[in-house]
């Protein structure tokens, strides 16, 4: 009886349960403990090893769809870099992403300004904005960052910005921090830039694309990897921050558990029907 009811369940009930399981922990957090894993520690340690005051390249290749997963790790990475007094040159290879990335940069920069650290756009950081061309842009940046991005997100001439005085090509950076939602992203940066220009890199990516990058992590082509919101939350724990990713982990935990239960319940119904069919 219960099984036949389960079999005929309207999928809108499943939608409702998922909605509630995500919403309730966001409103009333459970505070589940988050323990950093090795790839996340490697990501944190790789950035910590960058010489203080360096100019770092950060490519944020995502759009609003992946913002809940990737904006928290973008912001925590910026905090770690700015705590080391690094200058940050940001690029975007996703056409819908430049403005959401800009909002993340300005949000963190405002935090520092509020604490009395005078971060100046164009001096301590710059958002070079979006450039179409995917892998071609990555290769073009190897010939010169300013020639690939003649103007920044605000329309200023790149070569006239103080931060760009010491930046020529990839050799100007000790590391590439890539935040990636798919194509173009980490895979293309590894293939076109890490292997060709030997620029060390770390990656933060969506959970769904993380398995693809584990071979690069194991081979040393990636120095560290943040996989999805879980990776971002572990990174926040390492940095002793309590940001959006840590808050979101309770909701994600509940959703994962419910989907696992759906798989089990669906199969219990399936096996029971098969057994009933076989015995009939």
């Amino acid at each position, binding site marked *: 009886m219960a099984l036949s009811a389960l079999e005929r*369940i309207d*999928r809108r009930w*499943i*939608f409702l*349960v*998922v*909605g509630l399981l995500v919403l309730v922990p966001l409103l009333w957090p459970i505070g*589940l*403990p988050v*323990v950093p*894993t*090795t790839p996340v520690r490697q990501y944190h340690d790789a950035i910590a090893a960058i010489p203080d005051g360096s100019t770092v390249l950060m490519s944020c290749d995502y759009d609003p*769809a*992946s*913002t*809940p997963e990737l904006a928290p790790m973008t912001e925590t990475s910026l905090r770690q870099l700015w705590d080391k007094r690094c200058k940050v040159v940001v690029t975007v290879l996703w056409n*819908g992403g*430049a*403005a959401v990335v*800009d909002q993340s940069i300005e949000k963190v920069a405002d935090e520092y300004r509020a604490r009395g650290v005078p971060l100046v756009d164009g001096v301590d950081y710059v958002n070079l*904005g979006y*450039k*179409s*061309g*995917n892998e*071609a*842009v990555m*290769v*073009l940046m190897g*010939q010169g960052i300013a*020639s*690939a991005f003649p103007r920044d*997100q*605000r*329309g200023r001439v790149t070569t006239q910005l103080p931060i760009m005085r010491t930046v020529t090509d990839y050799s100007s950076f000790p590391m590439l921090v890539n935040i990636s939602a798919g194509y173009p992203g980490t895979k293309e940066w590894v293939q076109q830039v890490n292997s*060709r220009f030997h620029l060390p890199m770390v990656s933060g990516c969506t*959970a769904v694309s993380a*398995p*693809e990058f*584990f*071979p690069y992590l*194991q081979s040393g082509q990636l120095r560290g990897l943040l996989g*999805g919101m879980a990776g971002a939350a572990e990174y926040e724990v390492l940095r002793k921050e309590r940001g959006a990713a840590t808050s979101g*982990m*309770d909701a994600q*935990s*509940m*959703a*994962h*558990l*419910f*989907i*696992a239960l*759906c*798989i*089990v*319940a*669906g*199969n219990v119904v*399936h096996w029971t029907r098969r057994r009933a069919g076989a015995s009939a």
Partner: protein
Amino acid sequence: MKREIPLFLTAVIGAIVLAGFFVPHPYVSVPADYLQRCAVIVVAFGYALGGANLVQVNLEGILRRHPDWPYKLVLLAGMGVTLVFGLFVDRAKFQDPGTVSLWIYDHVYVPMNSTMFALLALFIASAAFRAFRVRSAEAALLAVSALVVMIGRVPLGDAVMAGVFDHPGLPEWMRHLRLEPLQQWIMDWPQNAAKRAILIGAAMGVMATGLRVILGIERSYLGGSD
């Protein structure tokens, strides 16, 4: 000549760019770099071509009163309004705070883009219940791995395991059973081995296809039947 000239251009450009990867001499690297700069411009033209195609396809649908023509109308209206404000009103400052273009981006594009992606969670849950059927030993292995990784990746997994196994009555080795190391092992070894094989296989395929294109054997990108 309609096919021979594109084939010739492809062969020459492909050979120069390929050689530029291995030969640093200016005779090779300078034209290779120039061609790569051209590639960025050609890709940018793709947007203009895509826009024209979008108008052509959807306008036809509206004029012929296809069943979903009102959606096509909304699409074209949205495109038109965004283009007009971006090109003629906000101009070069279209991404600056306070502009209409940024308002459209923040209040229309961002919520719609996020909503589409968020809906995935609902459909995945429904599909997990209705479609993820264990019908063979391989499917069972896949299902068990998926469950371990899915639950082991989130803090709740270990919290549940600790609740179940952290009991003084259980043997010592059982009290340390956790899903996180198991899911990490699955990701590090079986998953990595399979993924690496796929990556190497795909790379070999890309190399073979690239060579076939440069040598003029692969012609499907030109359109037509051969």
